[in-house]
């Protein structure tokens, strides 16, 4: 009895109905999860991993999906049960948490109500008793002053706190199995570390089994006993996490693992390095060409001094200014041609606003930005528009940053025509060349954005930026939304372009491992200020500021050997940069650690 798995999935198939008939998205997948065991299902978008999870709960849309095979919970089939019994199991025996904490809680119902719902449904508690139990659960997932937050609505909580609420809801009825579908993907690294620790701890306390869906090999190594690798609906490899990490058998697993950016993999090197590429079907690896020195010794192309951007917060009867968001505060750095400076930090630290302020997409409050020696902050609007030709931006979401009704050839040609760099005919011809340049085919120019995958779209955005021959590219989380293997390819493309064209990148990212790979220098931002800046090797190898240390410690490391070592993770929340109207930032002193490596002297904040 004791060796019967909690969940056994046998030959699972899932079909979705589309206009052209049924499409099989999960193909003959089998796995088991033992008591208190954590199984990770790993794969990239479209691999069928989330559909597998939803199918266990039988939550895939009824009319347009079909589940085949067998799903046994404690030896009893789930697929044969009537819907009424299935409702007892959902939330009772099997609970689920989701990727987007921002959207997976109902915004118009209080969190207390939403958690109590499960208690009343499955444990038959009376309203009063349920309330007490909710407070106990909120306490358990370490939500500060839990009792007073019962009646609060989700928008009053940060992303990490919402995910804690989701976990409290899932744990409400002491489920045998917790299904976690990318539960930390949308969170900042330090918050991710907290949530992973919390799940591990609760799993021990509650004797739960966990089915963990993720695309992140670092997270897998951190949490999973065993793993299943999925690719286009197939389970291509299954086994203990240590064994697969040590000796991946399937070429796809190998390509995934080699594409995973590993923090610390660059120790002892100076410049950036390309990712290794492994053929996903056959397996031979090609080692990338070494990355040459690209930084020019001449005057910096971009010099930012004491840049400050603040936003007013208004409130009250007469909409008076009640406070200010100090989004960017006294930020200074420079950037040479051929150099990559990364701005790193967590959500709300002001890294994106810094990028936008430099381009004056958001007007800075004060400070100076010199592009090629010319002051930008005082330029009239029209003149500024012309300068933007030299500085282009690539955004995070390649789905939102291309006009869905514009052919991509036209989208790439447009900036050249607007900036009068080419006649419309020339521009369209060059658009074809640019497509080749970013690894696509010229005949794709006539297609619309929805016909491309995320990685291809990001290449299109890069081509569009390159058309006007910029000297600086502000890449705002440009590879964050991409699958690992695609991410590696796009990073390699960016490095190729830097080598060839001497581009300077301001690389804005929260992903420390990618940053380590691409940067010459790194600036760490916290609450709108740069707390540490220096050569990449110095900042990563010898971090000085406590925030930098915390950030680096929180990054999941794709090394299963480290999993069992308990980590101490502080339950701090990310602080807010909103200050009173009369707040004057204290003067900051920077300490020099080594040439070019500066650290803000710590205050008591």
């Amino acid at each position: 009895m004791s060796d019967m798995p909690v969940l056994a999935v046998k030959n699972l198939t899932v079909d979705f109905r589309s206009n052209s008939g049924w499409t099989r998205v999960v193909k003959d997948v089998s796995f088991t999860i033992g008591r208190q065991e954590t199984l990770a299902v790993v794969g990239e978008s479209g691999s069928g991993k989330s559909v597998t999870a939803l199918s266990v709960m039988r939550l895939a849309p009824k009319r347009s999906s079909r589940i085949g095979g067998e799903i046994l919970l404690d030896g009893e089939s789930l697929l044969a049960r009537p819907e009424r019994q299935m409702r007892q199991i959902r939330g009772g025996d099997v609970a689920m948490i989701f990727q987007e904490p921002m959207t997976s809680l109902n915004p118009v119902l209080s969190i207390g109500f939403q958690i109590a719902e499960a208690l009343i449904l499955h444990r038959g508690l009376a309203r009063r008793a349920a309330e007490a139990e909710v407070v106990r659960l909120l306490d358990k997932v370490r939500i500060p002053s839990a009792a007073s937050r019962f009646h609060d609505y989700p928008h009053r909580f940060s992303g990490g706190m919402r995910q804690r609420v989701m976990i409290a809801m899932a744990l409400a009825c002491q489920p045998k199995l917790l299904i976690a579908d990318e539960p930390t993907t949308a969170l900042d690294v330090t918050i991710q570390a907290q949530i992973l620790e919390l799940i591990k701890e609760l799993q021990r306390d509650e004797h739960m089994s966990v089915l963990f869906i993720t695309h992140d090999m670092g997270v897998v190594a951190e949490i999973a006993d065993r793993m299943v690798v999925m690719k286009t609906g197939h389970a291509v490899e299954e086994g203990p996490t240590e064994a697969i990490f040590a000796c991946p058998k399937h070429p796809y697993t190998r390509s995934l693992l080699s594409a995973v950016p590993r923090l610390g993999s660059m120790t002892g090197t100076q410049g950036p390095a390309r990712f290794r590429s492994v053929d996903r079907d056959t397996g031979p690896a090609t080692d990338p060409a070494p990355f040459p020195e690209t930084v020019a010794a001449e005057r910096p192309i971009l010099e930012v001094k004491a840049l400050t951007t603040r936003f007013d917060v208004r409130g009250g009867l007469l909409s008076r200014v009640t406070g200010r968001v100090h989004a960017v505060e006294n930020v200074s750095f420079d950037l040479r041609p051929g150099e990559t400076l990364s701005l790193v930090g967590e959500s709300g630290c002001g890294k994106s606003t810094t990028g936008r302020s430099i381009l004056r997409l958001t007007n800075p409050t004060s400070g100076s930005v010199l592009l090629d020696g010319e002051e930008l902050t005082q330029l009239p609007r029209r003149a500024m528009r012309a300068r933007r030709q030299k500085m282009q931006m690539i955004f995070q979401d390649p789905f939102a940053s291309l006009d869905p009704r514009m052919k991509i050839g036209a989208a790439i040609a447009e900036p050249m025509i607007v900036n009068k760099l080419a006649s419309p005919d020339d521009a369209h011809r060059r658009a074809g060349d640019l497509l080749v340049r970013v690894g696509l085919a010229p005949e794709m120019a006539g297609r619309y954005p929805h016909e491309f995958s995320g990685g291809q779209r990001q290449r299109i955005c890069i081509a569009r930026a390159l058309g006007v021959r910029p000297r600086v590219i502000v890449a705002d989380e440009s590879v964050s939304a991409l699958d690992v293997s695609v991410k590696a390819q796009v990073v390699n493309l960016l490095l190729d372009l830097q080598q060839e064209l001497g581009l300077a990148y301001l690389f804005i990212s929260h992903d420390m491992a990618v940053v380590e790979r691409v940067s010459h220098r790194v600036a760490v931002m916290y609450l709108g200020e740069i707390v540490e800046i220096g050569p990449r090797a110095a900042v990563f190898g010898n971090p000085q500021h406590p925030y930098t240390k915390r950030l680096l410690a929180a990054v999941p490391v794709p090394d299963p050997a480290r999993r069992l070592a308990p980590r101490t993770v502080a339950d701090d929340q990310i602080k807010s940069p909103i200050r009173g109207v009369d707040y004057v930032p204290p003067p900051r002193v920077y300490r020099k650690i080594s040439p070019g490596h500066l650290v803000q002297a710590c205050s008591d904040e």
Partner: protein
Amino acid sequence: MLPFILRRTLATIPVMAVVALFVFSLLYIAPGDPAALIAGDQATPADIERIRQSLGLDRPFLFRFGEWTWNILRGDLGTSIFTSLPVTRLIAQRVEPTLSLMAVTLLLAIAVAVPMGVLAAWTAGSWVDRTVMALAVLGFSVPIFVIGYLLAYVFALELEILPVQGYAPVADGLWPWLRHLLLPALSLGLIYIALIARVTRATMLEVLTQDYITTARAKGQNERKILFVHALKNAAVPIVTVIGLGIALLIGGAVVTESVFVIPGLGRLTVDAILRRDYPVIQGVVLVFSLTYVLVNLAVDLVYVLVDPRIRY
């Protein structure tokens, strides 16, 4: 919450001022000499002059507007040219049937349309959904007088279960009052039902794809609670918005409906006043309707805050 209500209420003052200016200008915008039109073909110049003076057309516009506004604030809407009765009294006599008709229509429409829309969204693509949507198209396209006479024919003349026409005051008892209002409310409400049902369906379709609905299902909640607790409250803002905007439809429709069902309400009063060019009455009625509309939209804004905790002013 209280400062918001206060601020929002104060904001209706400029709106009402603009409305008042328009209503007052009616007299001046109308083509021709209103005094001559009112006096009719057989009038002597002395008659016309007398009417001109009683309308105040001999005095400057702004002076007259100030005086008129001041009178309104004191509760005096002027005197009907035709009946020589105070406009306030004429309106007071007629207001109950119209308010009753609008209230019953509103409640009936919400009670029918919202569940219909929810059901259609839940069964999207099925025959239930298609039937609901077909009915909605019908509701949009059939004019009130057609559906009114049709309903009267079926329920009053053939089945003889409801009165053909007329109105019974609430004072005569709730059931007679309601019996007389059912057919008018149904014919007036049909387009309103169509509108609310469509918007409810569209919004619910959108809400039902949200992650928190999956969360609720994963919790083991049943479909009825998911639809009416989790989803409908999220869909409420757009639905409440069209309910508020749709009041304009009701006001326009009430005029026609009252004629069809011979209800002695403000609609009839308006039609009669327009036919007789009884300007003070027209102005008074339009002002009352505008005020109703502004108040309904104030209520809508307050409901927003109740249904969606994220809305704070």
